[in-house]
């Protein structure tokens, strides 16, 4: 479903992602773990097409289409969803209206039916239950004055409504207490099925106890330094990220040599 080939991304002359390759198939959950500043969010933004994250080489293939230079709305319509680490507050735009605008924009691009406010309201109520979110929040401005937990839950609500083929969840767990974490993980599990894929980005292993990944990748300094199964996440938990530093120096040696050629 998704193939990232040797992706290099720079912002304002800073080289952030340094040759990332990754393959994700339908039905899979991949976890990407790494310390702060390793480039996890940059990878997520690059997948969603955020302006300013310039792909200097490599490509992103989604559903057999090269989307490397596609604008964000095109990717969303193609079925990619990004759950933001820091969801943006949009004062003045009511959440239910925003959700309907989003749902209808995507449906329209697929020549599918658009929902009027009443029809959408029904759908919304259903999905709110799936993610266990307070319906009152949908009458407020998008993320404005939401607590950290409410913001995260709102991202998952959007995933539940848009039903993307590929969901990239950037730290859906950060800032959540144990109960909230369990309930968010529970919602994610309800939304996984054999025809969609999820990339879950996290700093800590604890959410992976609930949302069990098929593969775990360690990201450091813009590179995937190690990939493995769910046990790799436990290794991080017990021994930290430092152990991977030597992989990093080996690899940076390699890429330097490569780039000199």
């Amino acid at each position, binding site marked *: 479903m998704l193939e990232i080939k040797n992706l290099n991304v720079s912002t304002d002359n800073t080289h952030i992602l340094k040759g990332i390759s990754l393959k994700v198939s339908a039905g899979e959950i991949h976890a990407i773990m790494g310390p702060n500043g390793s480039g996890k969010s940059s990878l997520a933004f690059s997948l969603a*097409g955020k302006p300013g994250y310039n792909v200097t080489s490599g490509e992103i293939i989604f559903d057999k289409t090269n989307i490397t230079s596609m604008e*964000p709305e095109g990717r969303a319509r193609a079925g990619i969803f990004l759950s933001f680490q820091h969801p943006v507050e949009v*004062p*003045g735009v009511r959440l239910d209206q*925003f959700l309907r605008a989003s749902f209808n924009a995507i449906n329209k691009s697929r020549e599918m039916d658009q929902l009027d406010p009443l029809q959408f309201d029904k759908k919304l109520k259903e999905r709110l239950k799936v993610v266990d979110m307070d319906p009152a929040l949908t009458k407020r*401005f998008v993320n404005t004055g939401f607590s950290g937990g409410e913001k995260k839950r709102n991202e998952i609500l959007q995933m539940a409504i848009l039903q993307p083929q590929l969901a990239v969840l950037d730290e859906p767990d950060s800032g959540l207490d144990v109960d909230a974490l369990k309930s968010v993980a529970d919602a994610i599990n309800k939304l996984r099925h054999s025809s969609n894929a999820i990339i879950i980005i996290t700093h800590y292993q604890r959410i992976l106890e609930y949302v069990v990944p098929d593969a775990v990748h360690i990201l450091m300094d813009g590179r995937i330094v190690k990939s493995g199964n769910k046990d790799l996440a436990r290794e991080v938990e017990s021994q930290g990220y430092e152990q991977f530093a030597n992989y990093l120096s080996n690899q940076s040696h390699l890429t330097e040599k490569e780039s000199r050629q």
Partner: protein
Amino acid sequence: MIQVEQTNIENYLSAFKIFEQAESSTSSNWMINLRRNAIAQFENSGFPTARRGNEEWKYTDVSPIAKGSFKILHNKSHNANQLPDTKYQQLEGSACHNLVFVDGFLDENLTNISSLPKEVLVCNLSDAVSIEPTFTQRHLAKYADFLHHPFTALNTAFMAQGAFIWVPPNISIDKPLQVLFISSSSNSNLITNPRILALTGENSKFTLIENHSAVNENSYLANVVSEIVLGTNSNVQYYRIQQESKKAFHISTTHVELGKGSRFFSMNLDLGGEIVRNNLNVVTEGEDSSCSVNGIYITTASQHIDNKVVINHNSSYTTSRELYKGILSGKSKAIFHGSIVVREGLRQIDALQIDKNLLLSDQAQANTKPAFWIYSDDVKCGHGAASGQIDRNAIFYLTSRGISESDARNLLVKGFVQEVIESIPNKFYKDKMDNMVNASLLDVLGI
């Protein structure tokens, strides 16, 4: 019909002589004296055009007004049939009690105040002088200071017709009372001096809409003065809708006195005008009074809109909230001066002032000039000001959900002023304002 060409102060003075004569049969002595005082004051000061040492008018150059040759209409000249029906409908004539002035003169045909509660007195100001002489004399021109404000002096000198409103104690008016000032003349360069005096008794409640509108896209000067006095525990909502011609000059002063325990909500919507200056002065005369003053301005082309809001906290336990937002495009310019004054020796004052601007072009300019004069200690006073372009992170957030970039922009532009619209305490007006703002955005930005 007498028309006098004005080119400078002398011409206003000679117009005053003709005006005084025309009004002599209907004016009492105190009124004649009041006007004479005011014209003398105006003669003394002239227009506030000095560019130096003129803090009040530092950011708004009124020399195009001072140089203009505005004519004062001494007689009713219009014919009500000239006023297109659609225009009147658009002004929500049917949802309100209406007092309608066309080019400064009461229009009997369009006016409809027959279903007001019988206790309420709403009439032409020129009639109030004879119906309620002492009452009118006690209040008229006692709040809006003409000694230090040339435009107020000019209005006071030429005041004749206008709205007089008295809502007695314990009366609440269901539908809003709309005072419509319509410029209909096909002649350009008229000056009108609209005037409102509104007084409320204890525990009364009403909504006042002051609506300035034009039939033609002419150049003219509307020089408005409104005095609103809230009795003890009364509640007034005040909507000021300025949709003058895009070539018009609009100068207004609204002076509000808050009695003990009274509540005042205002919403100032600026859509029209070439040069616009609104002075809003609110004085918390009584304890426990509060005000929420809000505004939206949508400017384009070379429009210049200056809102000066002064909140005078004169009593303890009083609260003020100011929220103004502007959407600026073209080469337009907006200024927001917000002054908060807290007299000495007061307790528990709570004041908050916010002005934000969304700049949709590189040439649009916004200036926010807050000023605080706080002479008490027990004061909570906050302010926020920001001017900027559309938030790129928000654009990305919306587009990442499949919404097109242009739709995302439009949502954000509308959303920007939505916060102000949300502050409107009544669903009916909230929807009305929403519609008006949307119509204006469609007109100005095509969204």
